[in-house]
């Protein structure tokens, strides 16, 4: 609703535009202070040799050297590969399982509201709680996961070292993230499924389309924008994954679960190579921003179909 003219007039000397600015100024100031300024500052630092643990040292410009070092550092490329593996598999699993769960819940069977709530519980928990909780579950001697896996595979529990084994550790994190965030994907998919009007299915029934045909020709295409939205949100979130990995493996064994955000944190706050860390952060930002933009354009095209 527009501001009625008499109100504006009552505030002496202030035009409608000035009042509008007065209202949005605090938000813009905050945005500038905590988002835009740090971003610009990080861009500046990325071209310097600044180290935050040496406040009295002379700061010198180093041109593109920080970017060159980041892009030619094999450890960083290793971390990027680890991140890509993690993002890819979590998205695949969460999308498939999330959509399947949404499809089941959408059937509206008896007690579906109760089961919806139960399924949503993991995403309501704090990542710190989930991380610690799963550490115990994965514990080879007392963990329920190891016990269950041992029952199924026949391998002794002491040999099921989910967090200490080079092959299993990345999957251990993927399992936890999938357990925690599949409900979120399910929720978005459920919204998509419930937005499909019933009359479309009724028309398909009249045309004697099979259930399989209805699923591929109506359900999937119409829910696709929602699925893509869920993939976008989870992709961005998982690209930044930090807390769960830190709690579960600390990036180990060796560096097999060291995702990009952990490398970035170590560069910035353990090595204190602030300039190089800023360059790495800018590269990550540009990568995520660029990929997200391309994806959003694809999403809009799907929506317009």
């Amino acid at each position, binding site marked *: 609703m527009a501001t009625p003219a008499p109100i504006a007039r009552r505030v002496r000397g202030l035009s409608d535009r000035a009042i509008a600015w007065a209202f949005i100024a605090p938000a813009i100031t905050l945005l500038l202070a905590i988002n835009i300024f740090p971003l610009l500052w990080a861009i500046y630092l990325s071209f310097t040799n600044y180290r935050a643990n040496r406040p*009295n040292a002379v700061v010198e410009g180093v041109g593109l050297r920080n970017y060159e070092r980041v892009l030619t550092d094999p*450890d960083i490329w290793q971390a990027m590969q680890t991140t890509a593996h993690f993002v890819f598999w979590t998205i695949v699993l969460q999308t498939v399982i999330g959509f399947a769960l949404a499809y089941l819940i959408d059937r509206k069977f008896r007690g579906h509201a109760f089961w919806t709530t139960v399924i949503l519980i993991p995403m309501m928990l704090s990542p710190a709680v989930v991380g610690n909780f799963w550490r115990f579950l994965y514990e080879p001697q007392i963990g329920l996961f190891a016990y269950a896996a041992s029952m199924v595979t026949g391998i002794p529990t002491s040999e099921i070292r989910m967090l*200490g084994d080079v092959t299993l550790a990345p999957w251990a994190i993927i399992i936890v993230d999938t357990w925690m965030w599949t409900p979120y994907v399910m929720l978005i998919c459920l919204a998509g499924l419930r937005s499909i009007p019933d009359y479309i299915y009724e028309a398909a029934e009249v045309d004697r389309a099979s259930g399989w045909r209805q699923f591929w020709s109506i359900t999937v295409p119409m829910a696709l924008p929602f699925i893509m939205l869920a993939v976008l949100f989870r992709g961005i979130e998982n690209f930044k994954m930090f807390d769960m990995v830190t709690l579960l*493996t*600390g990036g*180990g*064994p060796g560096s097999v679960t060291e995702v990009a955000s952990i490398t970035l944190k170590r560069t910035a706050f353990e090595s*204190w*190579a602030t300039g190089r860390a800023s360059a790495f952060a800018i590269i990550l930002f540009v990568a995520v921003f660029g990929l997200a933009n391309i994806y959003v354009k694809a999403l809009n095209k799907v929506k317009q179909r």
Partner: protein
Amino acid sequence: MQMKLKALLGLASALALSSALPNAAKAEQLTLCWAAWDPANALVELSKDFTAKTKIDMKFEFVPWTSYADRFLNELNSQGKLCDLIIGDSQWIGGAAENGHYVKLNEFFDKEGIKMDDFVPATVVGYSEWPKNTPNYWALPAMGDVVGWTYRKDWFEKPELQKEFKEKYGWDLGPPKTYDQLKQIAEFFQKREVDGKTVYGASIYTERGSEGITMGVTNVLYDWGFQYENPKKPYEMEGFVNSPDAVKGLEFYKALYDCCTPPGSSNVYMVESADAFKSGQVAMQMNFAFTWPGLYKDEKVGGDRIGFFPNPAEKAHFAQLGGQGISVVSYSEKRDAALQYIKWFAQPDVQAKWWELGGYSCLKAVVNAPGFASSQPYAQAFLDSMAIVKDFWAEPSYASLLQDMQKRVHNYVVAGNGTAQEALDGLVKDWTEVFEEDGKI
């Protein structure tokens, strides 16, 4: 309108006054920053005497070990005023001194008659001096600590186990003198049924995220002959860090990890190691000495059931130094009061009480006092360990150096990637880059 404005101003003034008055009446308050652990609780208790004597209130900012370095190094780097006094880790001393975070204490020590000769020499070098081995003091040795071992004395004393062990290895089961002996004991207990429960050989440090595996593996590396640099040419590391002896040491640590640790020991540090011991899982446990008083008091594994021994020897005999010195933060606005605390803390009677309460005093008058070695069951092992300490780099870039070692060693020992030689060659390369960047080489 003017009336309203006056009323508002009056109200604001009253509020400002009401909040300022109690502050004026309050006594001075110092904030001491440290890690959240048992000795910190002892220090709270001890500091009550300081408050009673000086009327200066003590406030404590204790942070768990996992975020201790992150939290306080950020605080120092941002020149924050939160901490008036800080008990900072030994490796911080170089950076804190060079970057002006700590107050240099030489003049103060001279004025107050505090002599560094009165403290255990290794703790002075480790916690107070920068550059090392020069009389430039930035901290007062506060909490001596060192890596050592605890063992299940009750298991070791079981006649049937002693007999079996002697038959198998040809020597009496007891605290090991060498690492080879330690491994034999660990192998002997690994997956053995003791009191109806499956137990394991030893718990050793393997933590990846902060400093764990480095604080563990260095104990072994030092004993095999690893050196940080050429003693005659600083920062020359080739052939010292990755010497054939150092490679053998690293291979030993991996062999110990592979053969004799409980399942799931891929990320073990102080808490996890103590937990493994307390839950009766392991026959021996590597840990810092600060954990010993708590373990000795433990109902299930303490008392007569626990024994203590220093790091075993091999070609050489060293132990990884832990512990910290207490410093005055140069950004504090209460420097005089903070110095007053240090003066009080340095007194022999305060240091004696510090030891009684569970802190590890570094004052010679306390640790060399007759009866000290028998004052606690772990006192002799502590003394023996403190006599053989060696520390990690304390350079301003210690965090980068530590991070490199964490990565290389964990990658070999726990992840099983590559060889020990490759791990140490890689470490020389990483450390060389750090020192080149610092302009040291």
